[in-house]
C-alpha cells in the first residue's frame, strides 16, 4: 500500500514538474514574436516546388506536351517567385528559441 502511495506521489510530482516547467521558465523570458506567416509561406513554397517537379515528371513521362509543359512551368515558377518575394518582405528569419526550454 505504501509503495503504491509512493508511486502515485512520484507520478503526481513528475506531472506537476512537467506541466509547470514552462510557467516557471516564462519568468524573465522575452515574449516570443507573433507568428508572421512565415511557416505558412515556407510550406507554400515547398508545395509549389513539389508542383514544379510534378509537372516536370509529367512532361518526362509523356503526360504533358512540350508546349503545355512550357506554359505550365512558367506559370508555376511565377507563382513560386511571388511566394519567395513575400518571404523576402518578411526579412531575415528570426532565431528560434532553443528547444528544451519552453518548447519541448
Amino acid at each position, binding site marked *: 500500500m505504501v509503495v503504491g502511495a509512493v508511486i502515485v506521489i512520484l507520478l503526481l510530482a513528475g506531472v506537476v514538474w512537467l*506541466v509547470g516547467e514552462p510557467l516557471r521558465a516564462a519568468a524573465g523570458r522575452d515574449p516570443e514574436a507573433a*507568428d508572421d506567416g512565415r511557416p505558412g509561406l515556407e510550406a507554400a513554397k515547398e508545395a509549389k516546388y*513539389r508542383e514544379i517537379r510534378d509537372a516536370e515528371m509529367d512532361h518526362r513521362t509523356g503526360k504533358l506536351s512540350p508546349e503545355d509543359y512550357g506554359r505550365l512551368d512558367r506559370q508555376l515558377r511565377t507563382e513560386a517567385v511571388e511566394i*519567395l518575394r513575400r518571404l523576402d518582405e518578411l526579412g531575415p528569419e528570426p532565431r528560434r528559441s532553443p528547444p528544451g526550454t519552453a518548447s519541448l
Partner: protein
Amino acid sequence: MGASVGRAALILALGVCLYGIGAALYGARSGRREWVDSGRRAVYALALILTVCFAVLEIAFLRSDFSFDTVAGHSSTTTPTFYKAAAVWSSQEGSLLLWVWLLSLWSSAAIFLTRHALRDVVPYATAVLLGFGAFFTGLLAFLATPFATTHPVPLEGVGLNPLLRHPSMMIHPPMLYSGYTLFTIPFAFAVGALVVRRVDAEWIRAIRRFALAAWFFLGIGVLLGARWSYAELGWGGYWAWDPVENASLMPWLIGTAFIHSIMIQEKRGMLKIWNASLVLATGTLAILGTFLVRSGILQSIHAFGASTLGVPFVVLIALLVAGSIYLVVTRRDALRTEHHLDSLLSREAIFVLNNLVLVGLCFVIFWGTFFPLISEAVTGAKSSVGPPWFDRYTVPLALVLVLLSGIGPVIAWRRATPANARRNFRVPTLAAMLALGLLLATTTAAREPVALAMFCCAAFVLGSVGQEFYRGIAARRAMSGESLLVAAGSLVRRNRRRYGGYTVHLGMAVLFVGVAASSAFQDARDVRLAPGQSATVGGYRYTYVRPTASVVNDPKRTGSLLDLGAEVLVTRGGHQAVTLYPSRGYYPAPDTSQGPVGSLIGGEATSHVGLKAGLRRDVWSAIEPDIASLQPLIDRGNKVVPATRPDLAFVVLAAIADHYRAAPPPAQFRLIVSPLVTWIWLGGLLVFGGGLIAMWPAPGRRVRARYLARVGRELKEAPTPV
C-alpha cells in the same frame, strides 16, 4: 496495490486532461505562450500516466492476478502467455485503456513534431486531443474501470475468448486503434485551423502525414481482421459486412478520399470546404467505429464488446457532428476556393470522381450498417441487410474505383490534351483487352461478367502503373545514365509520394482481383464424412483418413484442453496435393456446473482451420466433430471423478480422446477451394508497402536546396508579376 495505483493514475490522467485543455485555451486566448507550452506538456504527461496504467494492467494479466475483475473475466492460468498479453484488450475496459493510451502516444508525437509550427492552431488542437483524452479517461475512471477488484479472489479466471486466440489478434486491435486514434489528430488540427480560420499549406503539411499514418495503420488493422476471419472463424470467408468490420472500413474510405483531395487543395487551393468536411467526418467516423465495437448497439460477432457506454458515446458523437457542421458553416469565407477546375480531362477531375465514389461507398456501408437501427426506430421491428444487399451497391462502385485508380496515374494535373490522353491510355487499354482475350480463351471467366470486368480493370491498372514506372525509369536513365535498378531506386526515392501512390494503386488492383476471383469462383461444400469417406470440391478430392485427438497438448498452442480433428488427404487427378489437419478446440467453462469433466471442455469452442494456401488457389477445410456422441462418456466421468480430485478429470478426458480416436463418429466438414485468396494478402502487402514509401520523409535538404538554388537562379529571369 496495483489496482489502487491504476485507479489513482486514471483520476490523475483526467485531471491532467482538464488542466491541459484549460491551459491551452487560456494560452491561445491571452497570447501567453507559456500556458500553451504547459498545455502541450499536459499531453506528454497524459502519455506518461497512461503508460503506467497500461503497464499495471498488463502486469496483472501476465501474473494472472485474479483480484482484478477484468483479469478474472478475460484470462486464466491455462491461457498461454502470448495470449495473456493480448487479453488486456479483449475486455471492454482494457480496450478503452488501449485506445486512450495510443491516443496519448500519437498525440504526444503530433504535438512534439508541430512544436515549432502552426502556433495559432496547435493550442486548439491540443485542447481537442485532450478533450478526447478526458472523455475516455472519464469513462475509465467512473464507468468502466479496468482496475475494479473482487473479494474473495477467485482461484481461476474465465479465460480468453477462444475466438481471439489467434496471432493476428495480438496485432489487429492495436493497429485498428492506432488508425482510429491517429485519425483524431487531423480532426483536432482541422478544428484548430477552422477556429483560427487558417487552412493553409502549413496546415496541410502538418496533417497530411498523420492522415497517411492513420490510413496505413487502420488499413493494416482491417486486413488483419479479414485474415483472422478467414483463418479462425470456420466459415471460410474474410469479409461478412459485419457492423464492426464496416465501422473500421468507413473512416478508412473517407480517409482515402481525403488523402487524394487534399492534394488538390495543396496544388490548386480548391475543395477546401470538401476537405475540411472529409477530415472532420473521418475523425467522427473513427469515434463511431470505437462506439460500435464498445457499445454493443448493433448485433455482430463482435458482441463480446457489449456494454452500457452507449449514452456517453452518442452524446460525444452528436457533439462532434454538430461542432463540425458549425465550424464548416461559420468558416466558409476562409474556405473559399482559390481556383476552379481547368478541365474535366485532368487529374483533379479524376480525383473528384474518386472522392465521390469513395464517399458513395461509405454512404452505402453506413446505410447498410445502421439500417437495422433505423428500421427498428421507425417500424418497431428489427430487420437487417445481408451481404447480397451490400454487394449489389458496393461491387459496381468498386469496379469504378479500380478503373479510376488506373486512369489517375496517366493523366496530367490541370489539363491533359486529348492527344496526350490517347497516347497514354493506349498501353493500359491494350493490357485490359489482352486480359479479356486471354481470360475468355483460356478460362471460364465469361460465366461471371462482374469478376471478368474486375480482372480487366485490374489489368488496366497494371498497364497504367507499369507504363508510369517504365517511362519514369527511362527518363531517369536518359538523364543520369544509371543502370535499370539504380534508376528505379532513384526514381522512387526522389518521387516517393508519386510512386508510393502508384504502388498502392497496383496493390489495390491485385487485392480486388483476389476478392473478385475468390468470390465468384469459390467452390464450397458442407458434408458429413466418416473415416474413409471422400467428397469432391472444385476438382479436389478430400478424404477423411483418420480422426485426431489431443488433451492439453493443443497443436495450435491456444490453450484448449481438448482438441478433436481429422487428418484429411487432399488429392487432385489421383495425385496427392496436401494433407490437412482441421480441428476444433474445446476450452474450460467459466464455472464447474457441468461437472468435473464437462467443465474442462464446456466453455466456448473454436475452429482451427486446415489450410494450404497457394498463389493459384487455397485448399481450405474446417471440422465440426460430433461432440454430442461423447456426452455419455462425459456424464459417466462426472459421476466417477470426485470434486476433490480435479486431476482425475484429465485422466478421464484422455480416455475420452482415446475413445474418439478408436471409434470416431462421422464429423461435419466445410470444404472450400477458393482461387487467388493469397492475392488479397499480397495486394495488401503492396498497398501498405506503397503507403510506407509515400509516408517516408522526403530525401530532404539536399534536393530542396538544389531546387531552391534553381528557382533562385530563375528569379532573375522570371517576369515580374503584375
